[in-house]
């Protein structure tokens, strides 16, 4: 038994639930028998990967669904060995180069070269090219992205790239200009709801529309999250009730409590406690930027008006530093401290105003 997310994932372009016009365009694209490099971008949970897999299936047939996980060792020219995991079918190869950290450039250079230079294994297939699917392209170092530029042109004949990322802001211009960009926006609330109820129907469950709406809101229109939530609801309680609590992830609850702790008291001692909680989140694999973002959202809910603007600035400032710096905790803590200070000042001013 697999997760609903995987179980009901559409596997052909025709079966996609939303952005149908785009699906048709993609179909046209593939029917020509040839397509340019693609840059698929959109927020997490919008269905980028699903779309790409549908496209590949359209291109190569059911063979692309026979996936195998391979462990590849790449030897960099500097004799350093890099281990990287790839997911591959006979026709395509999926790799997340940012797994290699600083060495991602070598992965780009060597892996794509080897793939591109090797001929298609089965000559009977109708396509002359293989597809390399690179995920999280926005996390590639600039060096690696530069390395990608020429590689893309050079091996065009034998290899197409599909780049997948959340945002094109971090993708350098030369790469953007070499790709056909495909934007995958999040599904609308209605679309999420309809997907949820379809899935529930297939499971033989009855999903009240109110609950569907609530799940959709909580998930922030992230379809993957919505489906996971829905399934968690099912575990929690069935039959569904319209006003049932949608289970949130532990870390979100934890983060909210952390935010509450910040708001309720502002002292070095409390900051120390907050630090311990931040560490706890980090050890639970929550990336620092997500922590920062979640914290900001929660804190913004807790303050008003003029203060919000200030918090928004601070958040942007420290999140930027967090991206640049080495040790996230410095910046997370600086942000928390700063928030505490301005919040404290704000409350004290408020008190003064009340007294007079």
């Amino acid at each position, binding site marked *: 038994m697999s997760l609903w997310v995987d179980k009901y994932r559409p596997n052909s372009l025709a079966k996609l639930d939303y952005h149908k016009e785009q699906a048709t365009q993609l179909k046209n694209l593939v029917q020509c028998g040839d397509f340019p490099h693609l840059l698929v971008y959109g927020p997490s949970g919008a269905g980028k990967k699903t779309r790409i897999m549908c496209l590949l299936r359209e291109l190569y047939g059911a063979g692309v669904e026979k996936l195998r996980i391979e462990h590849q060792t790449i030897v960099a020219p500097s004799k350093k060995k890099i281990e990287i995991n790839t997911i591959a079918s006979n026709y395509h190869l999926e790799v997340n180069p940012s797994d290699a950290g600083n060495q991602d450039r070598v992965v780009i250079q060597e892996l794509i070269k080897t793939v591109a230079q090797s001929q298609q294994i089965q000559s009977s297939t109708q396509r002359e090219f293989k597809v390399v699917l690179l995920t999280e392209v926005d996390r590639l170092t600039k060096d690696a992205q530069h390395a990608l530029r020429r590689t893309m042109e050079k091996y065009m004949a034998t290899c197409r790239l599909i780049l997948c990322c959340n945002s094109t802001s971090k993708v350098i211009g030369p790469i953007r200009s070499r790709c056909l960009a495909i934007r995958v926006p999040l599904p609308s609330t209605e679309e999420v709801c309809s997907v949820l109820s379809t899935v529930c129907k297939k499971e033989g469950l009855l999903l009240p529309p109110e609950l569907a709406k609530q799940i959709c809101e909580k998930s922030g229109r992230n379809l993957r999250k919505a489906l996971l939530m829905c399934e968690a609801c099912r575990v929690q309680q069935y039959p569904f009730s319209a006003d049932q609590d949608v289970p949130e992830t532990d870390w979100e609850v934890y983060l909210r409590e952390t935010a509450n702790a910040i708001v309720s008291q502002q002292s070095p001692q409390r900051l120390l406690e907050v630090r311990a909680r931040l560490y706890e989140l980090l050890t639970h694999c929550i990336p620092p930027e997500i922590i920062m973002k979640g914290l900001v959202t929660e804190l913004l809910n807790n303050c008003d008006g003029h203060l919000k603007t200030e918090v928004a600035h601070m958040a942007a400032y420290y999140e930027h530093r967090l991206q640049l*710096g080495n040790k996230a905790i410095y910046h997370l803590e600086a942000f928390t401290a700063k928030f505490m200070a301005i919040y404290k000042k704000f409350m004290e001013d408020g008190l003064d105003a009340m007294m007079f």
Partner: protein
Amino acid sequence: MNKLSLGDKTASSGLNRWVDPSFTDLPVENFSVSGRKKPCPFSGFKPEPKRPRKRKGETTGSDSHSHFLLKDSVQDECDEPWVDKHAPRSQAELAVHKKKIEEVENWMRVHTNTSKGGILLLTGPSGSGKTATVQVLSQELGLRVQEWTNPTGLELYSCSHQEWAVNGYSSQSTQFQEFLLRANKYNCLQMSGDGRASDRKLILVEDFPNLFFRQPSSLHNILRHFVKTRRCPLVFIVSDSLSGDSSSRSLFPRDVQEELDITNISFNPVAPTTMIKVLTRISALEAAKSCGRMCVPDQALLESLGSGSSGDIRSAINSLQFSSHPDSSLEKGLWRMKKDRGGGTQTSQGKTLSRKTQKKKKSKQMKEQEEEQAIGGKDASLFLFRALGKILHCKRQSHEEAEGADGASGPGLPPHLSEHHRQALLVDPELVVERSHMSGEFFNLYLHQNYMDFFSEVEDVVRASEYLSDADLLTADWTSRSVMWDYGSSVATRGLLHSNSQQVTVGFRPLHKPNWLQVNKKHRENCQAAASLFRSFCLTPISLQTELLPYLAKLTNPMRNQAQIAFIQDVGQLSLRRFPGRLKLEALTDKDPGQLLLDSEEEQEKKKKEEEEEGQGASEDGLLPSQPQPTANQVLLEDDDLNIEEYDSD
């Protein structure tokens, strides 16, 4: 253990010591493997019935570099180093704190009277009197000291390195094991035969076979074996060094100490007052003996010698001998010059100095310390604990002093900046960081872990945290990191000092090791584990970690394997308790918790003294003395560096 002294010891004392074979029942085959041509294979141990001679040999060994140094200038009657000549012969002469002596004595009494021996580990900076204490005490208690010496022959060194490496090491550790076991056994044989005077003895190990530094586990195995059959006390002496190779931690990790029931007593550097006392006594004795043929050093010289050696009595005596020799006119001139510069205040006795003037001299002393190093002085390094304390406690001039000291410090800050006005600093942050022998990055981490305790206002914390954030940003770019490190640590330390505007006197605060490295490592490991365990979901790390895993924890999904289930339980769920229990604070303790206080005694206001002393008592009771150990962490970081370098190279 100090590498230098180890090498010297083996070189100078090894040869003539292992000549007389004491045990004939040893299997010779064991040693023939090593292929050495020594007449006696039992080189590792020698019963040493005559203590004074032994003591002398010992010190010559460890101070041989000063010996060489002196060789040219010191002739006829001066040929014996003062260190040996004036070696302590009684407890009273020991330049060690009474409590410490007592502690060691108690241990020795307890463990020699029962037939069950124990293991004692003495740690402390070199020249703090560890060996001397053991020697003096064992003499007084009537114990025979049996010492292990590394059997490395000089000719072995010179012949083939390979052979030496292969055979020498393995046989060394076997020899060591043999030594321990035989010494044990030998003891009981003696008991039946000889008189009572020699029946009790003590095994002393100061010199560790090299192998143990690389494979501490082999030492542990030998010790485990020893503990089972122990009959007589075993004393290990390990010198602390600041430069990173912290042998006591690697040779005797905490868990092994607990497992083998090893008592650890750590020595402090010799206190300046004690040091001066000893130096004065020696110089008085020598002056009387030489009848005016040597120049008697004055009090100021003694004082600067004392501070220059930073608590190492051995080096202090050596420099005393060196500088009071009539021939060394050059040095003499140097001392004079400095003394002149020091001015009138310097010549008066340290004890009679008012605290106020002492403080004024602080900056001057900084400079002087550097000059002292040129003449036999030790590189004054700081234990991390003290270094952190210097920054965190934020010593500044008090108001009166500032007014008294400088009327001409330039115009004050304009009114709108007046909140940034601070009194002059009493520490030099860059120097502190440099002397802590740590990279600025680590120092910052330590500061970050601990600074919060020293602040009372959120506003100050904001500023401080911002400076730390700045410091991290400065060193973010790896291409310029090597250059920026210094600036980064400077920004962090000075920023912290500046933002501590309240200057609350907090008294003693325990310091902790940074959690970040541990947290970061765990974060990385967990992320990797997540990626490898749940690869079949084909998700990007972020959605895997923030969406799939937490929900998997909430779902009942039977298809997962054992490892996945365990991982999800560990990572996917967060206990919603208020205070997370997973991270234990690891207290950063010092060799000497009192050291910080000793230091602050001089610098802080008088009224605080009592407080401090209370704190000292408390801390000695409460904290297990050990040493700051940055090295384990450093390894972690070095890995990172390595990656970066290789990245750079292609």
